[in-house]
């Protein structure tokens, strides 16, 4: 069963010459019970896509089916089936965390008698119990985001659509969110659609990922398959203590291939060449200039760049 079947989804923002094609003929299938990610840089059209999935934006063209039903014919479907986390939280900002969670639970139809238990369970699960009585606006950015995640998760919907749930979270809170999502997926078969521009998040929690670039889906598969499909290359990162000797043939070869950021070089090479180059660097004259290096198998960032992605604002940590 498909939670979402999206076909030809197109949406333009603005009119005339300043208009932007935010989503361009997007086709996607999100299976029931999977953690589906939408990865892309800022401005790729991720938020436009999920706002359409929630019925908050009307597509210019294309259809969105939810469990086999067109959401245009049943506009209340997304609100009934889905827990949604948007980017803005002004509606909740002045509410104490516990009240925000409890009232959201009531609005999702949790019986009055069960609200307290449901609320306390989710606050505990996400580590928010200590700040339960504080208004969201008085929390740190990360805790505030976490409280919003709690409101999206409460009330156990069969689908969760989360727009960058872990932005601004510290690593402990981020893992708490990932754990909470996986528990729901594993125990109740919750479908999760998750926007991210964090490569680590994409590789850690997603079953499948759609890579978005300028409103188009440039790839959609499991993170492993995507990495395997684009390239067998490895990434060699070099950090130089000072300018490397330009007359060294290995340095000259790498300099021609590298993308540089100050004295940091990133070179994509086949594994054998990378190993040889690194061997020569670390035994030759260039060693004195070399401060640090790492050799890594492809990440989803490499997939994104290899597929023609142009932006550099994907997060790695």
């Amino acid at each position, binding site marked *: *069963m498909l939670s979402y079947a999206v076909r030809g989804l197109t949406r333009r923002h603005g009119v005339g010459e300043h208009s932007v094609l935010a989503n361009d003929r997007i086709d996607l299938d999100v*299976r*029931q*019970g*999977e*953690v589906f990610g939408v990865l892309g840089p800022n401005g790729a059209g991720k938020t436009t896509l999920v706002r359409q999935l*929630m*019925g*908050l934006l*009307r597509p210019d063209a294309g259809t969105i089916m939810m*469990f086999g039903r067109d959401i245009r014919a049943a506009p*209340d479907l*997304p*609100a*009934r*089936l889905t827990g*949604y986390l*948007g980017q*803005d*939280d*002004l*509606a*909740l900002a*002045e*509410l*104490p965390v516990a*009240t925000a969670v409890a*009232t*959201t639970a*009531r*609005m*999702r*139809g949790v019986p009055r008698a069960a609200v307290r238990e449901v609320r306390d369970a989710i606050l505990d699960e996400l580590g928010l119990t200590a700040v339960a009585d504080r*208004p969201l606006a008085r929390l740190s950015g990360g805790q505030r985001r976490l409280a919003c995640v709690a409101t999206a998760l409460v009330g156990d*919907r*069969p689908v969760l659509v989360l727009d960058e749930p872990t932005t601004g979270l510290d690593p402990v809170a981020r*893992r708490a969110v990932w*754990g909470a999502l*996986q528990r729901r997926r*594993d125990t109740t*078969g919750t479908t999760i659609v998750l926007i991210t521009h964090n490569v*680590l998040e994409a*590789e*850690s*929690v*997603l079953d499948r990922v759609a890579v978005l670039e300028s409103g188009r889906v440039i790839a959609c598969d499991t*993170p492993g398959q995507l*990495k*395997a499909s684009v390239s067998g290359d*490895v990434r060699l990162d070099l950090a130089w203590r000072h300018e490397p000797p330009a007359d060294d043939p290995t340095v000259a070869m790498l300099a021609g291939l590298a993308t540089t950021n100050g004295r940091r070089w990133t070179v994509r090479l086949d*594994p054998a060449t990378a190993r040889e180059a690194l*061997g020569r660097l*670390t*035994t030759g004259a260039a*060693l004195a200039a*070399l401060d640090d290096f*790492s*050799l*890594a*198998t492809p990440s989803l960032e490499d997939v994104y760049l290899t597929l023609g992605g142009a932006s550099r604002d994907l997060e790695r940590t």
Partner: protein
Amino acid sequence: MTIVPDARDASAILSALQPEPSPEPFLDPSSGPSTVPLPLPIPARLGPPKMPLATPFGTAFGAVYRGQLARSKVGRIPLLFVASFQSIGILVLLRGILDVDNTTAAGQVVAGSTVLVVAFVALNLLAQRFGALRAAGALDYYLTLPIPPAAVVLGTAASYATFAAPGTVITAVLGALLYNLPITGLWLLLPVVLLSGVCLAGLGAVVGLLAPRPELATIAGQLGMSIVLFLGVIPADRLPEIGRFARDVLPSSYAVDALAAAFQPGVDWSKVVIDLAVCAAVGIAALAVAAVTLRRVGTS
């Protein structure tokens, strides 16, 4: 697989590089810094989920009301005083000008000042609130919950009204004492405040939701409040022709008239009922328009 050197010992580095990269290195759980377990297989084929019901109006209203009431009470208690002081100030000011023996005019001044407290909250504050929610894109929160939009408007209005209600009682009682009016009919305050509240809250929400910028919502709300003030407090027979027409069009005038009747010795109940019915009808219409506007503005 990531190899990061700890030491600059070339032989150690090279020996670390010896093994061929695994054909599927990314399936190695040790490959990344994450300790989160890799995704488990997708659960066996699931049937379509049980469709959650839409939340009934009463439950949604209660939840919105309770949530809004919890919003920093500290910030809103001063508003309560501002709303009342404004009306009490007008009462005191006009006491020096008006002929107190003219109970019709006196009753209208007191009723107008009382409804002004409602207008301050329902028109002015609600327009500001919905204007700010729209500008921040925060309406998404409500629109993605399975609740009727009217519950959002009414629940928010009711929470503001809770802070305004004592102000209306204080204004009406103080006005009656200042102008030597009977207070036996003051129970009418309850339906008047309730119905004019729904009416003006609906209008306030529509104004706030339709304003393209939050500053415009604020200006429009304050302008609306000023109109309610002038047309409500100035006795109808002293208004010019155009003013009387505007007064007839303004729904809050009917609330003022109904409450003004309570201060008169012989109450024309049929007229009071008609006035309240007009308020109720406009209130329901305004609320319906606000609910449609909320959905339309939030889902562009």
